[in-house]
């Protein structure tokens, strides 16, 4: 017993010595990666943006959810204002505090949160249809949406029962997963959702401070990030996007930065320069287009900042 204790003491001393050695070293700098700022989208002829929340792109347009004005403001890919649609209200084509947006299958899908529905528009902003969002327990408040390439499956995050619900275009509930909780596969305020190239979806789990990746049936595939304030950790993750190499870009609206993770979930770096993260202001929804340009919504700055991910 005594020998055993002694052995244990030696092991602990070694561990502590190693730990002490490590702590005794100079704190590592924050790994950063520079990206080139290209332009800012701040509004246009229809007036400035007000508390925007999300952004989506297709081959022609950049669609920004201008939540404070309850509308969608559209720019071309060079940042020139094109048109806007929506406005506050509950009629078709109007919004009440919309949050998330995505473009898929030739359509623009908007999470019309306050009206408890997804609204579908053509790429010119023409209203096509409205889909009331329901889980098995009833009406839900949609936050964001991802859509399968064929447009037949709508993945909607909602923070009424903290789930991802999958709906058919006609509003039928196909399946749902999640629920309020701390465990993997559960959520506390699921927010942004984005579809990966391999048909999986990544869901920002805000108060659980992580991004969970699921296959299309809802099985957990990967967890990206953890809670905390160190590199690779998240405090208020809001937006998630994936580049063509499968890297995850995660915005943190409190720490005001964007962290990048490998497709395996391993932390890579923070967008910044020389160990200093770029000081975004309340970054929320983000998107990467096919030109590998990163769009970052900065809510309190009422703008969308655009960066080139590749030199």
């Amino acid at each position, binding site marked *: 017993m005594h020998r055993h*204790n002694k052995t244990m*003491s030696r092991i*602990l001393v070694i*561990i*502590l010595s190693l*730990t002490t050695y*490590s*702590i*005794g*070293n100079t*704190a*590592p*700098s*924050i790994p950063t990666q520079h990206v080139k700022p290209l332009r800012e989208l701040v509004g246009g002829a229809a007036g400035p943006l*007000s*508390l925007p*929340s999300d952004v989506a792109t297709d081959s022609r347009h950049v669609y920004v959810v201008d*939540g*404070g004005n309850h509308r969608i403001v559209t720019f071309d890919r060079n940042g020139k204002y094109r048109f806007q649609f929506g406005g506050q209200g509950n009629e078709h084509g109007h919004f009440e*505090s919309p*949050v998330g947006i995505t473009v898929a299958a030739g359509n623009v899908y908007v999470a019309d*949160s*306050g009206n408890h529905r997804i609204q579908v528009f053509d790429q010119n902003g023409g209203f096509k249809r409205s889909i009331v969002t329901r889980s098995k327990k009833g009406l839900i408040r949609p*936050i964001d949406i991802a859509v399968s390439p064929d447009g037949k499956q709508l993945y909607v995050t909602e*923070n009424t029962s903290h789930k991802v619900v999958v709906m058919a275009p006609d509003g039928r509930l196909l399946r749902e997963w999640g629920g309020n909780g*701390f*465990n*993997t596969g559960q959520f506390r*305020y699921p*927010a*942004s959702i984005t579809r990966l190239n391999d048909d999986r979806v990544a869901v*920002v789990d*805000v*108060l659980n401070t992580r991004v969970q990746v699921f296959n299309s049936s809802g099985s957990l595939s*990967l*967890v*990206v990030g*953890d*809670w*905390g*304030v*160190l*590199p*690779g*950790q998240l*405090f*208020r993750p*809001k937006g998630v996007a994936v580049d063509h190499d499968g890297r995850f870009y995660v915005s*943190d*609206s*409190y*720490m005001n*930065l964007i962290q990048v993770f490998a497709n395996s979930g391993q932390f890579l770096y*923070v967008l910044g320069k020389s*160990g200093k*993260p770029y000081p975004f202001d*309340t970054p*929320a929804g983000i998107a990467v287009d096919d030109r590998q340009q990163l769009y970052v919504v900065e*809510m*309190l700055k009422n703008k969308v900042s655009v960066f080139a991910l590749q030199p």
Partner: protein
Amino acid sequence: MTCYQRYRHLAHLFICFIGLLLIVGTPADAAPRLPSAKRECALCHIMWLTEFKRDDVTPLIAYDPKPVEKSGRQDVSSTERMCLSCHDGFVLESRFLWKQNQHTHPIGQKPSEHIQIPIVDGKNLFPLNDDGKVYCGTCHTAHGIDWSAKDSPIFMRVRSRDGELCQACHKEKTTGPAQGNHPIKEKPVVRPGFLETTRAQLSNDNTVTCQSCHSAHGAASKEKILVTENLDSQLCRNCHEDRHASDLTQAAAKKTHPVNIVPRQAKIPETLLTAGAKQGSKGQLICQTCHSPHDSKTQHGILVKDNKDSQLCRSCHNKQQQVAGGKHDMRLSNRQAVNIRGETVDKGGTCSACHLPHDGEGPKMWARKLPPNTEPMAAVCLSCHSKKGLASKHGVGEYSHPVGFAMGKAGENIKLPGFSLDGVKFDNAANGSVTCASCHDAHQWDPNQTLQSVSSETEGDASNSFLRIRNNQDSKLCRTCHKQQLYIVGSEHDLTETAPDSVNALNQKPSQAGICGSCHHVHNGLGPRMWARKLPPGIEPAAANCVSCHNPDGIAKEKAIDQHSHPVGVSIDNIGIKATLDKWVSRFPAPLGLKAPQPLPLYDERGHSLSGGQEIGCGTCHDPHRWSPDSTLAKTDVEGDAGSSFLRIADHGNSELCINCHADKSIVKHSKHGAKDLSINGKSKAGPCSNCHQPHQTKGAFLWARDTGSGEAPVEKLCTSCHRDGGTAKKKLTGDFSHPIGIELADHMKDPSLPLFKPGSIERSKQGKIDCTTCHDPHQWDPADMNSLAGSGKKVEGDANTSFLRVSAGENSELCIRCHTRQQTVLKTDHDMSVSQPRATNTKRQTVTESGVCGQCHSIHNASDSFRLWAQETSRGQNRNERLCLSCHSKNSIAANKVPAATSHPPDVHVWSGPSREALRPQAQAHLPVFDNNGEASKTGIISCPSCHDPHQWRAGATAAGPGYNSEGDTQNSFLRLTDTRAFVCADCHGLDSIYRYKYFHSQKSHQKHSLFR
């Protein structure tokens, strides 16, 4: 170290190790996690994370537990940045708070001295930040309200569904009206709609609370963080809709003090603004001009200033305060009288006796009960100035100045106010209507003297009496509106000059009453038009005013109106005019080029002219205030004519005034009857009507202007004024033998639709008698063409188509046939000269075209023979009838081919006819006339042509016109009265031989065949 101590040391080391592992990270497929107190707290208290204390790691953000925010230095957990990290829509939707983040409860400020933050356990229940300022954490915390609370927002330090949190600090704002605050915990009368559209809330029991008006976050108005803007009383309106108005009209309709208008006359004084009164965005008066929802200094009405004795009212209504100390000051006149709130003047203040700022009775926020069915603005005054009112001594009677008509009727730029029915005042404009307040300013006794104290016993006169302008001898007030009436000055109707010693009903001479007052009393007149002079009895109300002077005993006795005048009191509709106040339309045809009639005053049965009455009165033709319509100059001692005489329309030679009503008579000027040389006494100025008519002091019926002639029928006497020997129309006499007049139509004659007249009268009657104008319309030469000018020539000779006939007697002789219906079968027979002898003429050398069918045989006037008014030269014959027939049926006459060899039955043979014959030969049946020596049908007499022939019907029993061509007759037609020869009178004596005798006499062919009878 003991074993226990070693184990404890090892345990500590192990815990540290596990902690470090946690810091390093958790694999993706980590085991199920449980809530971590450290982590949950760190959701907001991020600086509690130990990573910030470590030297071996570099946190992504700097350690800053007490950042300096806009509101000051405070804990990081309650910074705006921390709040937004969840309230950005992704977790909870509160973006609106940031969108209007300037409209929030103030932070970064130290509480004022009025704020008493409750102390609990020696600490502020609502903590301030490190700088002693209000910050988010003053009201919010995650540790206050139970998160399961359903009746209060979470994250509040105390429950605050009903404003408890607000009231905890702002106690002084919750004390109710008695302490100068807007009431809370009272239900609004109507659930306000803005609850659905703004952040306004009622408390759980639907009563007013702090959040009903204020919103701590996302307020629409930065000012006082109100749920809506209130610069134009919008917020107040939500509950007090009944007291909100966008303009004066709305305010008047709601019987409330105007709001949201820029005061024009009243002025919001600086002292009131200093006292807390507010103005709207454009300087307009708003609710908060008078009311202060908090911090009011008054005990009633949360007013910005105490309104004892109407001090608040008088602050702005400076001019109106002159009412104090005068006859309208109830403190002096009726101290015990109460308004509709039951308040005496002592309680409510001077103004309250008549006005209430809200919930009044009618226009002007009236505070007294209004009489029903009265023009609203006048009702305000009549609420006291009536028989049973407080001011019954100065009641307003029936015959007073009218109210309620458009001020614009008086002209433009009238310097007296008009009012809408709701009491909106219009200054110097054509808008609004005349009402009591147009002349009276109820707040000022003497227009020339302000702040004058007047005893309630003082009697007023034209220089005061609350008049807006003194109305002394110069009638200045009256003349302000009645400018057109000013032309009376210097005219015959200006009694100050023409009858200075006359008196009105108040025994005032013109010098006392003034020009206007000599004839009018603005209140309590004796009759219509506020008549001020004694009215004669039994006179039509529409004329009584004028006759009060223009009578044999009146001051205008030389111009007395007798009974032979143009009628008054009769409806204009009688002459086909549909009249409204602004437009007259005649339903009778009028000649081309005649202007539409000009509306003239008409009167109702009580003599009022503005009520839409239809009756004619003196004032229809006369404007007693203007001598001549063509001139504004007044003349006295000048005899009037058709261009003056106070007429409304001057006669410029076309009788314009007359034809304004009698448009259909205007065409007389295109006839001989309208010739200017027919004018009487050389009044060449007057138009054609004056040739025969004059409106007053006439000489006969139809306002006859000429000396009447002889005759039996009334109209005949008028026609013979001219159509007589030596008369103007001496060439147009009717002759010895004319159509009879003064007789009734025969029984078989139906209504001819021609005028008939009661015996001895010009009054028309369907059962009346024939007179000249039964057939003639003396105003229209050609009955077929109103616009014909053919009759105007002096030498124009008329015929059956013209000659002032009402209906043409030419062609088919319609005029004749109107009465002589049985004779209409002569048309289109051989006796219709247009069929048999179109070129034949009568004694007047008229062809049938000129004379008409009847006129070839009968002359209506100037006939050659009284018998049948024969129009042909009679021939020789044995009897009168035969002579007529032989006019044509004789050698060398137009019917020479229809001449019997022997025309006459032996005159010695007298036969029976009628009932006597029927008694002898019942089988004969038919009546065949025989004639006496005068040619008239008789019971017994000689046989003449008409015994067998009816010259007006080709075929016996015909009811329609003839065939229309000249045909050879036989025993079945030939104008015979019968077709059965056995029934002829011939057979009575001649039996079967009669037919041969007939042939002998009537057929040349037959006669030659039977020489026996030669």
